[in-house]
């Protein structure tokens, strides 16, 4: 029998048409004392407008520096079930595919070792298991490991790479997001489990520029599927869309950032040379327009919302990279750039912030890359090219004048 708490404030959140997290916590609270005390503490937090949680990142599993986020309640005497209430991150399968048997296994394990409360999934992409005690961490990790699961990343480490469903369920996928994610996860196990960076490092892989995982805004390394061939046009289907009420001029032509589409009321023309590969036209006219091979990915670096300078989108580093196993070019780039970041980054400085601090020029030099027009992030800004004395010693202008 678990302890019951009066929860008038939380009860309000059970009203309305949507599923309620309060209802779910109550279900767990009926059989789990940790969940019961979590409910009581939450009601208290709502009443007092204080969370009463202490975050201490000491706990973990031997050999791992990540995967467990320590949580302790300030009201341990009153709510002993949540004195420790650690969060466990479990590395999710790429694309979030499970058998019902696998989900049952995770739920059974969590009923045994934790509060029974989960988040499928956290914003990192991991399976989030909410609330356990320090003594249960080792046995839990062992049971997970014996059944093919592993802890995910946390702290100043590479975080669990995540991706969209990709070719498993999406017609637009131009790269195998699932395989890339799985491969990178296997490759960077050390970086994932042993925090060795100045701060967190997130990789997100999406199959097309629609970017369902918001990789461009949320990942230190965004891998976004793209194409190099011309956009294939099925004129009959374009006309069909027009007949069904799509305003081709307004919704497609006028919204093209490259101004490379024209429509004469009967046929659509695209000047592929000026295409910005934004995918807007293709997404708006599925079936009528299609990207064609070669397929690959645009690699971008450095996004995150809470930068000192404000929210920042990723910056193009490779406009087009072939994405064929074993993805060696990508892996080499990750290692080279992260060595530089580890060497010069300050504590809690993301790689994008270091690039902003030391300059894109230095970053490109370290990575052995040449500046390209696609790297210019915003109009009227060329932020990374300055001449060095050495560049001028060869008098390059003499050859230009000739």
């Amino acid at each position, binding site marked *: 029998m678990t302890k019951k708490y009066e929860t008038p404030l939380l009860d309000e959140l059970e009203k309305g048409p949507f599923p309620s997290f309060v209802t779910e916590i109550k279900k767990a609270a009926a059989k789990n004392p940790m969940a019961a005390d979590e409910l009581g503490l939450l009601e208290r937090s709502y009443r007092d407008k204080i969370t009463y949680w*202490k975050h*201490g*990142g*000491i706990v*973990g599993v031997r050999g791992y520096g990540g995967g467990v986020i320590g949580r302790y309640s300030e009201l341990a005497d009153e709510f002993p079930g949540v004195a*420790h209430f650690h969060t466990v991150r479990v590395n999710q399968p790429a694309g979030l595919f499970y058998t019902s048997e696998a989900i049952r296994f995770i739920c059974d394990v969590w009923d045994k070792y934790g509060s029974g409360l989960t988040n499928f999934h956290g914003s990192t992409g991991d399976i989030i298991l909410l609330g356990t005690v320090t003594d249960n961490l080792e046995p839990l990790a062992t049971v997970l490991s014996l059944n093919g699961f592993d802890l995910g990343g946390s*702290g100043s480490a590479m975080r669990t790479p995540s991706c969209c469903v990709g070719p498993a369920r999406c017609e637009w996928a131009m790269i195998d997001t699932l395989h890339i994610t799985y491969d990178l996860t296997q490759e960077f196990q050390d970086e994932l489990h042993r*925090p*060795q960076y*100045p701060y967190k490092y997130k990789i997100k892989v999406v199959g097309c520029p629609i970017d369902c995982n918001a990789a461009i805004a949320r990942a230190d390394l965004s891998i976004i599927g793209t194409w190099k061939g011309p956009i294939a046009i099925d004129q009959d289907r374009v006309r069909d869309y027009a007949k069904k009420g799509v305003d081709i001029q307004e919704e497609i032509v006028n919204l093209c950032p490259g101004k490379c589409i024209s429509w004469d009321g009967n046929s659509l023309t695209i000047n592929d040379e000026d295409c910005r590969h934004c995918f807007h036209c293709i997404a708006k006219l599925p079936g009528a327009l299609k990207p064609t091979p070669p397929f690959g990915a645009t690699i971008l670096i450095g996004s995150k919302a809470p930068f000192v300078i404000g929210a920042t989108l990723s910056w193009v580093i490779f406009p087009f990279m072939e994405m064929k196993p074993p993805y060696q070019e990508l892996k080499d780039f990750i290692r080279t750039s992260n060595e530089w970041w580890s060497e010069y980054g300050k504590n809690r400085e993301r790689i994008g912030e270091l690039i902003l601090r030391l300059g894109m020029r230095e970053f490109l030099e370290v990575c052995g890359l040449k500046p390209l027009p696609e790297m210019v992030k915003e109009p009227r800004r060329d932020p990374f090219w300055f001449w060095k004395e050495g560049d001028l010693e060869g008098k390059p202008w003499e050859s230009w004048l000739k």
Partner: protein
Amino acid sequence: MEREELKKQIYNLIKEAAGKKKYKQMDVIKHFRNLGVPDAETKEAIRELVDGGLLIYTYMGGSYIELATKLEEFEKKILE
């Protein structure tokens, strides 16, 4: 430097810094790089110390390497 000697020195570095300075993995690597120890060797020695349960990774805004005894002290303190 012999692996065991390196491990001993890393452990002592962390022990002597306890309560005064927190070391990230890269700080330890840089410290021993200045003494002529290759980065990979220091990294491997840290890994052995962590796997052996003598050192742990902690997270206080950033991830650090500290003595494993810190966990017990920490929980005792935080639960008080």
